[in-house]
């Protein structure tokens, strides 16, 4: 009796579960790993409020772009913006989702986070292997009083293609003409020096294991794992430690208003307090999707995110978009996403 009751109850619950999933629309997205922690938190919160589910697969920016082009997902996500010509060719639109940034991390004894200073050209020279010792005059000159040892610098870079790498080398290309001609920019490049670690965790692990190592990771990763990061001199000549505030300053000072399809890489932003290697993640969607209802759902989700997701993003080490940019995105949706 009790057994059959339990069974029928279970069947009922199961049926109810199916019914619920059938009602709620499943929005699917794929792309950059960078935005995954924020998106999954938002998705869980959104699900609690609306019952709608957002499934996001963090397969990498390249994969995200390929998936949205193949129309297997409702939105793709990339850490590098697509050029307006490429968007037009495929009938795609794009908009920023959240802001983060890339920070240099070091393995040097006796140096506290944020204390060691770099400039863009010095970072480029280090990553090209031209500055090979920690007590190089260029480093000593901008770090007076810091105990820089007479030891080799070992460069640690990403071994996998990554949006983190894209933003890092994009910055180095902007500040060092030599980097731009010799190495260039991309989600993976031909590194002139060093060893490669897989993922943020790989770079962090190598940096921790090798004395005198320098690597680069996302800010949220550096903060959570208490890595020793450095400050970087920005365009207006100030040394800026990476923080949520300095990323916000970078986002606010970037020239979004004049960008077409938000095609803008935020590195080397002009603001006085802007951290120079801030980065944006982009969402890519079809302007004329085959499933309009689902595309509308996806836009609704991001609308909800901009209105309610700031606290969740900040708690994870991301920086929410400035209000002016959100307004611009609203206008972009209104003119481009007519579904």
């Amino acid at each position: 009796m009790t057994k059959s009751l339990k069974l029928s109850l279970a069947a009922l619950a199961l049926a109810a579960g199916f019914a619920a999933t059938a009602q709620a629309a499943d929005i699917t997205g794929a792309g950059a790993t960078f935005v995954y922690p924020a998106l999954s938190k938002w998705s869980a919160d959104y699900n609690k409020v609306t019952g709608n589910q957002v499934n996001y697969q963090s397969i990498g920016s390249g994969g995200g772009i390929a998936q949205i082009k193949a129309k297997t997902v409702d939105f793709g996500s990339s850490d590098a913006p697509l050029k307006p010509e490429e968007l037009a060719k495929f009938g795609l639109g794009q908009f920023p989702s959240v802001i983060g940034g890339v920070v240099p991390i070091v393995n040097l004894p006796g140096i506290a986070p944020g204390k060691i200073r770099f400039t863009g050209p010095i970072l480029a020279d280090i990553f090209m292997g031209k500055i090979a010792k920690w007590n190089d005059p260029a480093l000593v000159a901008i770090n007076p009083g810091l105990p820089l040892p007479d030891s080799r610098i070992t460069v640690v870079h990403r071994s996998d293609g990554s949006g983190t790498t894209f933003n890092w080398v994009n910055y180095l290309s902007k500040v060092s003409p030599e980097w731009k001609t010799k190495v260039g920019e991309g989600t993976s490049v031909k590194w002139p020096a060093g060893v490669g670690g897989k993922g943020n965790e790989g770079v962090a692990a190598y940096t921790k294991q090798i004395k005198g190592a320098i690597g680069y990771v996302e800010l949220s990763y550096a903060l959570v794992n208490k890595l020793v990061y450095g400050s970087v001199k920005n365009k207006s000549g100030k040394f800026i430690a990476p923080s949520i505030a300095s990323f916000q300053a970078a986002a606010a000072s970037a020239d979004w208003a004049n960008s077409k399809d938000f095609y803008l890489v935020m590195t080397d932003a002009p603001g006085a307090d802007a951290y120079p290697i801030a980065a944006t993640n982009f969402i890519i969607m079809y302007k004329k999707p085959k499933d309009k209802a689902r595309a509308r759902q996806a836009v609704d989700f991001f609308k909800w995110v901009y209105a309610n997701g700031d606290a969740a993003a900040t708690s994870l080490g991301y920086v929410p978009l400035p209000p002016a940019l959100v307004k611009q995105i609203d206008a972009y949706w209104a003119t481009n996403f007519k579904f």
Partner: protein
Amino acid sequence: MSTPASMTAMSSDLRAASDAKHDRLFRWAVTAAGLFVLVTLLAAGLSMFWGGREAFQTFGFGFLTSTEWDPVQQKFGALVPIYGTVVTAMIALIIAVPVSFGIALFLTEVSPPWLRTPIGAAIELLAGIPSIIYGMWGLFVLVPYLGEYVFPWLDENIGPWPVIGALFRGPPLGIGMFTAGLVLAIMVIPFISSVMREVFLTVPNRLKESAYALGSTTTEVVWNIVLPYTRSAVIGGIFLGLGRALGETMAVTFVLGNAHFLTTSLLEPGNSIAATIANEFTEADSPLYLSSLIALGFLLFVVTFIVLSIAKFMLMGLKRREGK
């Protein structure tokens, strides 16, 4: 009288027919299983060649000899990964083969019987550890130790030697081809030693006892009786381990350094075919880049095939010498 006899004849005829049918079915089934291997192998090879055709067309033979790997300029060459794959697998074998010999001979010839089961079980457990665990152990335990003590010592003491010294010069990162070879050695030892142990057990006791009766020492029995009797199977076991070392991905990615440089030094970081594919596949954002990675997969196929063929030829050579 004749009825039962004809019935038996009939039933035996029926039986023969059904037996023949079953036999045919059985033969088809096992033939299909055998062909399945061949078809899978061919399909895998062909599809990788097809996937990599753009890279082969663009770079031609230069793909094999170029050390370039530049995703920005779209120039790719496979020499660095091929070199890294072969060198790390060789280091692994140089370390693993003698140790596996030792383990297998100890277990079959020397060890007291009560110790055989626990050591045998330990080997099988080692074989079951996932490769990512070996990789993490390599990175977090082995690398700091090597970087602190072993690499500086090698650099200082063996580095200045002529010829061999070039293999052991370099910064003491603790990460590099030597470390990858070491981790691979530990990973393939269970495979090689368990095959060897099984094979050594097949040596008839009669042969060994006769040799002992003639006054041979254990060493002599091993070298003159056990090894010649089992040679081809032992080499088969070694090549099973080699196959695994060539294709290992995760553990190598952790400790190899993933840097596209060609160096003579084993202490410097390098790259392997499997590690390159695992690292770069997800973000290979141009058709040529993707095609180059698949072409690398095809080359791993070719490298493994060549290595195994060399093994077969070695075996045939040994057999011919025995015949004389």
